[in-house]
């Protein structure tokens, strides 16, 4: 007998009793499996990425020195930072450092990559050699350069003396300490940018160059009108990565100068380290870190927006 009402057994499978079939649905099993896949990484992600992220911004609203209970002080830390000459000095040093390292490194790396791309002999050898500073610990690199730049004992001044220049005390001189750290950093990062540019250059099809040559374009024209535009995605990437890492420089400052002489090399990161771990002023240090994050964010957004103007994507 057929009835318009579904048989009881069917009713059990629809409507309110869907839960018993839930685990038989493939999409649910897939989702559960996916969560299992993600689980090993998710817990550390929560505890050591998300929590500190939230914590970092929250801490900036507190005053805490870890020994006594903390107090909520709202935006007082930020007001303090705005008025803090030392903080502004640190931000200025970071900005100067970035301005010194990024363009120099970019131009040198691009130049070397272009030279290497044209030669084609010994690419692997040169790549290895130029990469040696990159894979070496920044601490070790800083130590070697400290020795090279020693005012009265180092090789740099000895070589300068050969051509008649009397070199300054470098890391002991308030004018030359930051440039010295800049040179060390450019030296260390050159190979990395060079390899990235090399990959980008090798991705440019030869056809473009051939067509340009047929049109009578000289070497410089080809570089300006073919290479640079087609390389712009790589250039953009190198630029963004270099700026972000330059704004966070720490190791070299710690090893080479400890912020000196007379705090002329205290960068934003070093300021945060000092404030948090030497002065135990956790709230203030977190506030400074938040400001640094803001600067990096704004710089990145700015570059992102600007890329429409000059980055060509295929």
């Amino acid at each position, binding site marked *: 007998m057929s009835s318009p009402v579904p048989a009881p057994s069917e009713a059990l499978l629809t409507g309110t009793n869907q839960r018993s079939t839930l685990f038989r649905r493939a999409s649910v099993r897939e989702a559960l499996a*996916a969560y299992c896949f993600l689980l090993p*990484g998710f817990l550390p992600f929560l505890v*050591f990425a998300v929590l500190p992220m939230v914590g*970092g911004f929250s801490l900036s609203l507190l005053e805490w020195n870890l020994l006594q209970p903390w107090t909520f002080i709202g935006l007082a830390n930020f007001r303090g930072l705005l008025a803090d000459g030392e903080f502004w000095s640190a931000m200025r040093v970071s900005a100067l450092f970035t301005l010194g390292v990024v363009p120099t490194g970019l131009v040198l790396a691009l130049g070397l990559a272009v030279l290497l791309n044209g030669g084609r002999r010994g690419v692997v050898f040169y790549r290895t*050699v130029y990469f040696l500073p990159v894979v*070496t610990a920044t601490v*070790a690199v800083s130590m070697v350069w400290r020795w090279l730049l020693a005012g009265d004992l180092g090789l740099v001044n000895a070589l300068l003396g050969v051509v008649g220049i009397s070199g300054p005390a470098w890391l002991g001189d308030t004018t030359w300490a930051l440039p010295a750290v800049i040179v060390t950093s450019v030296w260390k990062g050159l190979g990395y940018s060079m390899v990235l540019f090399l990959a980008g250059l090798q991705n440019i099809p030869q056809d473009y160059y051939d067509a340009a040559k047929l049109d009578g374009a000289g070497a410089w024209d080809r570089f300006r009108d073919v290479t640079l535009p087609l390389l712009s995605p790589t250039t953009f990437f190198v630029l963004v990565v270099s700026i*972000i890492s330059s704004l966070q420089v720490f190791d070299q400052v*710690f090893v080479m100068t400890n912020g000196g002489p007379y705090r002329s090399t205290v960068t934003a990161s070093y300021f945060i380290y000092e404030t948090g771990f030497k002065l135990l002023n956790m709230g203030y240090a977190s506030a400074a870190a938040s400001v640094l994050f803001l600067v990096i964010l704004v710089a990145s957004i700015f570059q992102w927006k600007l890329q429409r103007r000059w980055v060509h994507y295929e």
Partner: protein
Amino acid sequence: MNRDVAIAEPPASHNSPLDRALSILAHVILVLGGLAMVGPFVWMIHSSTLPTAEAYRYPPVLFPSYRAWENYERALTLVPFARFFLNSTIVAASITFAQLFTCSLGAFAFARMRFPGRDFLFLAYLATMMVPFEVTLIPSFIIIRELEWINTYQALIIPFVFSAYGTFLLRQFFMAVHRDLFDAARMDGAGFFEIYWRIFLPLAGPALAALGVFVFLNFWNSFFWPLVVTNSMDMRTVPIGLALFQGRDSVQWNLMMAATTISVIPTLIVFLAAQRYFVRGIMLSGIKG
């Protein structure tokens, strides 16, 4: 119709004297640059073998009366490098294995599986990459302190078991693997983990090697976090040991250079042995980025 200029002639001066001169100039510049890269290392090794009596002469001594290899012995006794090497190796190796494991699992899920919250979670992972280390440094330190993990291996390893960067990189790689491979295996009734373990993981060999070398070197050389989280000689890592070696007022530069050379050798060996993977990894991240 005149069709005699179908194909333009190739540039006449393909190997003119100017081209050859420019090519030589290019090589000269590359060699000079290479010397600038290697020079400081050579000087480091040279200085490390100077006897103390001659190490402080100015202009610097180029040919010492003898090579003071005993500097290395002295550096090894002054600084407990054996312990530092052990710590650095344990930490870097553990982190590398852990990251390869968690990142490949996560990347597989993001690349080939469907589940609610997938895009949101992936964006969240990416967002954490944007936040600089300085922001998370102090809260992470406080968390470690609350867990009573200060000066332990856990503090040096666990926070880095997960990596958004590594997950992102491997996801790019897995997404490039042909869809058919996955679909065919699913139709044969293979489970997700089986597909991951038997198909995707072996395929990802080069990418895993590249990521592995990169991660290993990165954490072997890391300085800021171990500095903050360890406070006794038996837990410090190589970069810290080196930095603290200079803590004394009168730095003995020849010993310092010997210590630096000792600290640099393992990374150089690992790099030279695995540079193919390392450079490939850099290039992979650059092109996709």
